[in-house]
């Protein structure tokens, strides 16, 4: 229960379904300043109070768990490390994988609970994961890493609802969070200013903006400020727009090219997992390579792992497939595939699984 309308309604629907429900709010930030700011970020003091009040309205037990250390390490530090490594991270997927879903579910089961319910817009049916009914709000993309054991114990009551329906439910139930505004940005980056956040963390690391032939076109304040496909903020004058093709953090270089240079026809994913726990075989699927990107048809080609038998998933259950690298041969070119992003594979509405983009080729 984050204090937002989605998790409030989730709790209410869980109670309406007759389950024995306990609400938990995760304290994910440690700094007093963050705890006091209300608004765009998530999980502030005010949010904990909102969640507590909703729990009180629903007459369910409510606790606040301090997972700030885990969150800092697994999500925030990882976010910074990825940018420093020239990749574009997906913190929401990392949070679900390490803290909010997988981690929390493990703790809940350790306490004798049967399931975890969250306010994600996605559906679990017969132990499989599907897109949510509201295409605009669908969050299946950030849940791709869940396996059969987790899905069996996960309940997503909002999966069949649209956002307007959720707000209407909240209003009907008299929940004080019914009209609460959304939090959109990365929850730990105030005002969505990722570049500023990274600069405060790393300091300025000036370097060169170069073209594919190595010619210097301009300079930048820090390679970490750039992501593949980015056009703005390059500070170069060119006859036609230039786009970031790749970031080379070791050399401090940002390599740019023309629009046509962005076109990608193959993508490699590593650390791939499947929602049914079986290794991915060769097949056709549709892939989403960015949180709000469009989907492209592709041929899935499983590759051999460098270390066969290693657990594919951080939680290392024995049933994880060990062929965790795949190549995706795209049916049509995609622009701007950033390493570090999640590549999530769909078969219609069914989420097959996914992995992390490690490489891409024209």
């Amino acid at each position, binding site marked *: 229960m984050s204090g937002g309308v989605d998790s409030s309604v989730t709790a209410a629907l869980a109670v309406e379904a007759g389950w024995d429900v*306990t609400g938990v*709010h995760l*304290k994910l930030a440690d700094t007093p300043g963050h*705890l006091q700011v209300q608004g765009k970020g998530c999980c502030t*003091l005010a949010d*904990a109070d909102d969640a*507590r009040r909703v729990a009180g309205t629903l007459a369910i*037990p409510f*606790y*606040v*768990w*301090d*997972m700030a250390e*885990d969150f800092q*390490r*697994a999500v925030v530090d990882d976010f910074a490390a990825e940018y420093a490594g020239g990749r574009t991270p997906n913190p929401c997927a990392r949070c679900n*994988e*390490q*803290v909010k879903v*997988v*981690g929390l579910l*493990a*703790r809940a*089961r*350790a*306490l*004798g609970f049967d399931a975890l319910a969250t306010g994600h817009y996605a559906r679990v049916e017969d132990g499989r994961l599907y897109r949510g009914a509201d295409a605009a709000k669908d969050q299946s993309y950030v849940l791709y890493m869940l396996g059969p054991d987790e899905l069996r114990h996960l309940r997503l009551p909002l999966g069949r609802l649209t956002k307007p329906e959720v707000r209407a439910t909240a209003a009907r139930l008299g929940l004080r969070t019914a009209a609460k505004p959304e939090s959109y940005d990365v929850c730990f980056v105030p005002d969505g200013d990722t570049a500023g956040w990274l600069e405060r963390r790393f300091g300025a690391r000036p370097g060169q903006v170069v073209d594919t032939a190595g010619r210097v076109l301009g300079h930048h304040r820090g390679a970490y400020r750039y992501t593949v496909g980015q056009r703005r903020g390059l500070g170069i004058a060119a006859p036609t727009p230039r786009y970031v093709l790749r970031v080379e953090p070791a050399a401090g270089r940002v390599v740019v090219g023309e629009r046509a240079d962005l076109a990608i026809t193959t993508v490699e994913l590593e650390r791939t997992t499947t929602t049914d726990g079986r290794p991915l075989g060769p097949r056709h699927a549709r892939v989403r390579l960015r949180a709000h990107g469009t989907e492209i048809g592709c041929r899935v080609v499983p590759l051999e792992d460098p270390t066969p038998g290693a657990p594919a998933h*951080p*939680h290392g259950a024995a049933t994880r497939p060990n062929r965790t690298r795949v190549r995706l041969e795209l049916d049509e070119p995609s622009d701007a595939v950033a390493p570090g992003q999640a590549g999530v594979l769909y078969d219609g509405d069914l989420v097959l699984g996914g992995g992390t983009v490690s490489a891409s080729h024209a």
Partner: protein
Amino acid sequence: MPYLDYAASAPLRPEALAAMLPLLERPAANPSSQHTQGRAARAAVETAREQVAALVGADPGEVVFTSGGTEADNLAVKGTVLARAPEARHLVCSAVEHHAVLDAAAWAQADAGAQVDLAPVDNLGRVELDRLAALLQPGRTALVAVMAANNEVGTGQPVAAVAELAHAAGAVLLCDAVQAAGLPGVDMAADGIHLLALASHKLGGPTGVGALVVRPGTSLRPLVHGGGQERGLRSGTLPAAALAGFGAAAAAALTDRRAGAATTLATLRSRLLTGLRTLVPDLDVNGDPGLPGLLSVRFPGRRAEDLLLLLDRYGVACSAGSACASGAVTPSHVLVAMGRDPAEARETVRFSLGHASTEADVDAAVAAVAKALAVLATAEGRTGSPAAQGVGR
């Protein structure tokens, strides 16, 4: 429902309720008013003042009523600092004081030109007298703050010895007796204390009132200005009903003390510890039993958050460390000052007994802990990994 969280708040004593009801039921009057009804309310307040003073060996005229223990601590620290010349605002606080003292001192350092030194404690949480003495700066130290007994681990402090050191340095001693005023008890005169903080609800009175007991000759600036009540030290209409409850609770606590309640509580605590040790042979006890009813224990390999959730589910109330503003369990500064690492602090649960506690409460608590541990062990058996293992490691 077994309630073992007296250290957080004690249930309202019947005597307190009985003292409050008449004042709530009849037309309200301001104890400062000069008419008959006002004088009646005033009389009730003055009775309470006598009862509170008697509990701590002070004169009624020394009692300043406040909104609680926190305000009393704040008045003591800030009021002393503001009464001193800027170059004489050095403060020495034990490292295990309540945040009401530590944070007030921190404010004084940030905003009132004070300097604060923390006196370290040993692994039982007791102030080390020689190290405290070394921190004192005669003529510059304004106030030394050492509580009578610690609210998290129960350890009693050598207050009389600290008082002597403070006197010698020309400093005032603040003794936060919020937890200890009832049992084991505190004697202001005998122990040489200048400022004593009390809270009604820890004694079984209502929340919302407390007192700072001020030895004559102690300079203090008020924090709350207004109608001049409490000799100008704490303005505001005196809440007659609540204070009557406070007084009655103080009187009852004094009676209990004289009737040997400390021994009764110690016996119950022993019973609890024995029961818990049977379940968890490697249970770790924190602190010394200065507060006879308080038991702070560490369950190795178990998160306090987890135990608390399960115990709450089984209807047993207790607590873990301190709660932060959002309600999460934070590693206690007290345990850290005693040399525990934060991970150990997160495994610590506090049980505290008091005036209405019985053997049945203790036995029910032990049974609930047994059940909780069984649940956690079952989950471990299922997944093959310890439940307390961190996320993502």
